[in-house]
């Protein structure tokens, strides 16, 4: 019985609200026609310019990049990670947990090595030097390095190859940048650089053999 009289009361209320609702509906209908005509001509112009009127805006593209980028890489900070209610977030959670945290820089070479080339005992297709150069700047020298010597030797090679700007992918570049920020590489002074240049010139003029010890 209460529901019956509630419905009666709601009916009275809706009768009073109905004219205002119809006015709002008519207003939106008229504005909708105008905006429809505007978007129609806009879609025609976009069609002839090779694009289309997409429901996906730049913010959606950025959000997709973040979601897709957080799945293979650990580059997304925990604050920007999706909420755990999302299915994508649930899939990402174990991957994020498996990778080491950013506060431990000494572990990073191991994660990069394992992520790019796999474990040292595993046979990989990237053993030739030419192929390795296409990947991360952490080059084949990493494979030949024993674990104990990894800390110093890989750092110098990374710092050298960083200046060469090999065409690595974005992930590798990001990883190399992260490594380089935590790595110390002894910088040569300008005098040493000049000495190197003079030595190179002397080598070119004196003998036909050109051995560049920098690559070792």
């Amino acid at each position: 019985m209460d529901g019956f009289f509630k419905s009666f009361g709601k009916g009275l209320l809706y009768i009073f609200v109905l004219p205002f609702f119809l006015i709002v509906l008519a207003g939106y209908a008229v504005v909708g026609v105008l905006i429809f005509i505007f978007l129609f001509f806009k879609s025609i112009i976009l069609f002839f310019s090779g694009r289309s009127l997409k429901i996906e805006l730049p913010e959606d593209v950025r959000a997709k990049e973040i979601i897709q980028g957080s799945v293979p890489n650990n580059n997304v900070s925990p604050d920007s990670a999706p909420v755990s209610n999302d299915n994508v977030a649930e899939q990402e959670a174990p991957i994020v947990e498996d990778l080491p945290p950013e506060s431990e820089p000494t572990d990073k070479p191991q994660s990069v090595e394992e992520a790019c080339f796999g474990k040292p005992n595993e046979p990989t297709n990237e053993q030739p030097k030419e192929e390795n150069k296409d990947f991360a700047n952490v080059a084949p020298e990493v494979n030949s390095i024993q674990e104990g010597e990894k800390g110093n030797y890989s750092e110098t090679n990374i710092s050298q190859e960083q200046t060469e700007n090999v065409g690595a992918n974005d992930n590798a570049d990001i990883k190399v940048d992260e490594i380089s920020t935590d790595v110390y590489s002894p910088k040569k002074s300008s005098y040493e650089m000049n000495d190197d240049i003079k030595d190179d010139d002397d080598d070119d003029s004196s003998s036909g053999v050109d051995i560049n010890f920098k690559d070792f």
Partner: protein
Amino acid sequence: MITLIKLTESDKRLIIAFLLIFILVFVIIGLIGYLIVRIMRWQGRRLDNNVSDVVYTRVITDKKKFGKYARKKNWIMFYKAARIPMIILLCSFVLLLIRDLCYHDFAYNPFDKDVGFGSVLFLWDFSKVFTFSTGSMSINAPTVINSPHLVAEAWCGYIFVPFFLVGALWYLWSVQSLIARSLRIRKLSDSIFNKNLDNFNQNEQMMNSLNSQQNPNNSPQNPNQNK
């Protein structure tokens, strides 16, 4: 001299019947309004599918930017939903225009009861239902002025009116969805970005942090140790 209205039993029953009908009408209107409200809530929630990624990944963290982004998306969704009904309306009006050009008759009414769609409908005359004479009121049944019959000249009305009604109702449905999503945008802008301190107690939080320091293994605020 004051004359009192004398009500017979049949008059009383008639008044009670009218009151019941009056109440039933408002109850039905209330139920229809409740249905419309529920449908609009359902239409508004469909906006969440399109804006959730941006909110979850924190691409937008501002109320104004969210409103601007969501309104833009709302209009694009309306455009995509209203394309088909607009095409139907356009085709029906083009047909009417072609008929008017062929017959040279731009005053044609497609809803007319003689040469329009009204020829296939039952039509009544309600003007003589209530008649008032000296001290009494009489109720008469409405007279039928048209019964369904087909007219060859009304072919344009038979095609135009159904297409027009379908297109108009479909377009109004799209407009209602637009209004529902606009209301949803206002609600989400408040719920997502407004900061509410109603259930926040600084002392409770301090006690929880002290407890977590004393018992780090049992504290829920130490997710690293739970791994």
